C-alpha cells in the first residue's frame, strides 16, 4: 500500500499521496481546457472527480497518466514526477480513459490478451489466467469469445474496466466508468470500486453525477470550467455550510418560539421554517415541535455544501449563458 519500501522510517509530515498536481494547465490552441488545478489524491482514498461535461475531467486524467503534456504545472504520480517517472509509475496504474478503446475485429478476450502482452508487471505465463480473471471479475466471461464490434455500450465499458484490472494496481483511474451502464452495471462498478478500496488500492473516478460520487467516494474534487472549485473529504464537504432542515408547518409562530426556547436557531421561510442543525439533530427538532403542538407536515434536509454547490454548477451549465446563474455560481464557489 505504501508506494516506496523506504517509507516506514521517515515520519511523514504530510499524509502519503498517490498522486498530486500543482498548477496544472492545458491549452488546446486558444481553449483553456484545464487551469490552476491542484489535486491531491491521498493514498488509499477513493477520490471522486465531479464536474459537468466539459469541465476538464478527462483532460486532467490524461495529464495525470502522461498521455497529454501539460502546458504548465507539475505532476507527481506514485511518488515520481511525470513525465520522467512514467515508466516507473504507470505499471502500477490501471486506467479507463474516455471510453474503452479496443479493436473491433478481435474478441473481448483477444483484445485483453493484446493489452496484457504490454503489461510490464504481468509474467508471460500468467497472461492467460489474468485475462480470464479480469473477464470474470467484470462479468464478461460469457461474452469473451464474441467480437468487440458486437458489444453493447455496457459490455465495452466492462471490457475497459477489465483491462484496467489485469494486474493488481496501486492506483486505478476510471473516467466516467458508469457511462452507458444499466443500473445493475452501475452497481457492479460500485462494488468493484469498493473492493479496490478494501484491498488498499487508491481509486480516482470521475463522474458528472453527484449520486455516483456520494455512493462510492471518500474524497471529492469538484471541477468547473477547468478549475477545482472545491476539494476535500466527502463527509466534510457534505457538511460544509452547516446542514439545515426545511420544516413545513402551519403553526409557524408556535414552532419558532418552541425552538427558541430549546436554543435551536430557526427562521421563517415560505410555508414553514428553516432550522439550522448545528448542535442538534433532526429527530430532536421534530420532537420539540411535536411537543409544542406544532403540526409537522413535512421535514426535508436542506441542500447544503457539496450538494448545493454542485446543483448550482449543473444548473448554471444547463442555463448555459444565463448571466445571473453564473454570478451566483461564482459567489458560491468562493
Amino acid at each position, binding site marked *: 500500500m505504501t508506494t516506496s519500501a523506504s517509507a516506514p522510517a521517515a515520519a511523514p509530515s504530510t499524509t502519503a499521496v498517490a498522486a498530486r498536481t500543482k498548477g496544472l494547465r492545458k491549452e488546446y490552441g486558444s481553449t483553456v481546457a484545464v487551469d490552476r488545478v491542484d489535486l491531491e489524491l491521498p493514498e488509499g482514498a477513493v477520490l471522486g472527480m465531479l464536474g459537468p461535461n466539459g469541465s476538464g475531467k478527462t483532460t486532467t486524467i*490524461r495529464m495525470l*497518466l*502522461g*498521455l*497529454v*503534456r501539460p502546458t504548465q504545472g507539475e505532476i507527481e504520480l506514485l511518488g515520481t514526477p511525470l513525465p520522467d517517472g*512514467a*515508466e516507473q509509475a*504507470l*505499471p502500477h*496504474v490501471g*486506467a479507463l*480513459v*474516455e*471510453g*474503452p*478503446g*479496443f*479493436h*473491433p*475485429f*478481435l474478441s473481448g478476450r*483477444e483484445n485483453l*490478451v*493484446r*493489452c496484457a*502482452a*504490454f*503489461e*510490464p508487471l504481468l509474467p*508471460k505465463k500468467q497472461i492467460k489466467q489474468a485475462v480470464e480473471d479480469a473477464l470474470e471479475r467484470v462479468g464478461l466471461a460469457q461474452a469473451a469469445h464474441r467480437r468487440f464490434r458486437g458489444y453493447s455500450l455496457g459490455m465495452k465499458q466492462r471490457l475497459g474496466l477489465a*483491462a484496467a484490472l489485469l494486474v493488481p494496481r496501486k492506483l486505478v483511474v476510471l473516467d466516467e466508468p458508469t457511462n452507458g451502464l444499466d443500473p445493475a452495471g452501475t452497481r457492479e462498478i460500485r462494488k468493484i470500486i469498493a473492493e479496490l478500496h478494501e484491498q488498499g488500492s487508491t481509486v480516482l473516478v470521475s463522474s458528472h453525477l453527484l449520486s455516483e460520487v456520494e455512493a462510492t467516494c471518500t474524497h471529492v474534487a469538484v471541477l468547473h470550467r477547468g478549475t477545482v472549485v472545491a476539494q476535500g473529504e466527502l463527509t466534510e464537504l457534505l457538511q460544509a455550510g452547516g446542514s439545515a432542515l426545511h420544516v413545513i408547518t402551519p403553526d409557524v409562530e408556535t414552532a419558532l418560539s418552541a425552538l427558541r426556547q430549546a436554543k435551536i436557531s430557526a427562521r421563517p421561510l415560505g410555508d414553514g421554517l428553516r432550522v439550522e442543525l448545528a448542535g442538534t439533530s433532526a429527530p430532536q427538532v421534530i420532537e420539540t415541535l411535536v411537543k409544542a403542538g406544532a403540526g409537522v407536515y413535512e421535514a426535508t434536509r436542506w441542500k447544503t455544501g457539496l450538494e448545493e454547490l454542485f446543483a448550482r454548477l449543473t444548473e448554471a451549465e444547463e442555463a448555459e449563458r444565463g448571466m445571473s446563474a453564473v454570478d451566483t455560481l461564482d459567489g458560491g464557489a468562493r
Partner: protein
Amino acid sequence: MITRQLGSEVRWMLRRPRTLIGLFGLVLVPIVISFGIWTADGDGGGPGIAAILRGNGMVVPIFTLFLSLNLLLPLVASIWAADGLAGEAQHGTLRGLLVAPVSRVRLLFVKLFGLTAMSLFAVTLMAVVGIIAGTAFLGNDGMMTLSGTTLTTAEGLLRIAFFVVLVTFQMVAVGAVALAVSATTEHPLVVQAATMTSIIVFQVLGQFSSLDWLHPFLITTGFPGLVDVMRDPIPFDQISDSTLLAGCYLLIGTGLAAIRLVTKDS
C-alpha cells in the same frame, strides 16, 4: 518483454481482416502473370524482363515483385503503417498501450518491426507463389538472365532470395515514411492517401528529364535499377544506390515519426 510485444504486434497484424485480404490480393499477382503469359503464346512479352518470361518460370517471382513495387507493395506498406499508429489512435487503443506503459520510442520500434516482418512475409509469399505458379504454367529449366546466360535452379533461387530482401527493404522504407505521417493523424485513410499520392507524383516527376536534378532524391527512381539482380554477373552500383536511397528514407521517416510520437498528445 520486447519479444512478447513484437510477437503480439505481428499476431495482431495477421489477425486483421484487411491484412488477410491484402495478402490474398498480393498472392494473386504472380498467378495472374503466369497464367497471362501462358495463354498469350506467340510474340514473346514486352521489353526488358518481360521478354525472358516465356518458358522461364523462375523469372515470374522477380517480374511479379518488380511490377508490384511500383504501386501494390507501397500501398500495402502504407496500410500497415496507417493502421499501426493512426488506426490505433482512432480506436483509442494507442492510449491503452501508452499507459501500460510502452515508451513511445519502444512503441515506434515495435511498429517498425511489425511492418518489416509483415513486409518480408508478404514479399516472400509472393515469391514462393511466383516460383510455384511460374513453374506450373511456364516450365522451369534453370533461370535465364537478362545477359542471356542461364543459371541453375539453385543459383536462381539465391537470386530470388536476394531480390526479396531488396524489395522488402524498399517497402519498409516507404512504410517508415508512412509511419511518420501516421504519427500525426487519427485518420488511417489520410496516411494511405498521402503515401500513395507521393509515390505516384514521384513516378510522374521521374518522367521529366528537365527535373533530372530531382531524380536522385526520389525513392521511386531507385526501383527499376533493382532488376539488375537478373544480370550475370550482377552489377552492384545501381542496386547499392537504390538501397542507400531507401536507407535514407527509412532513417528520415523513423526520425520524424519518433519526434512526432514523443511530443504527441493522445
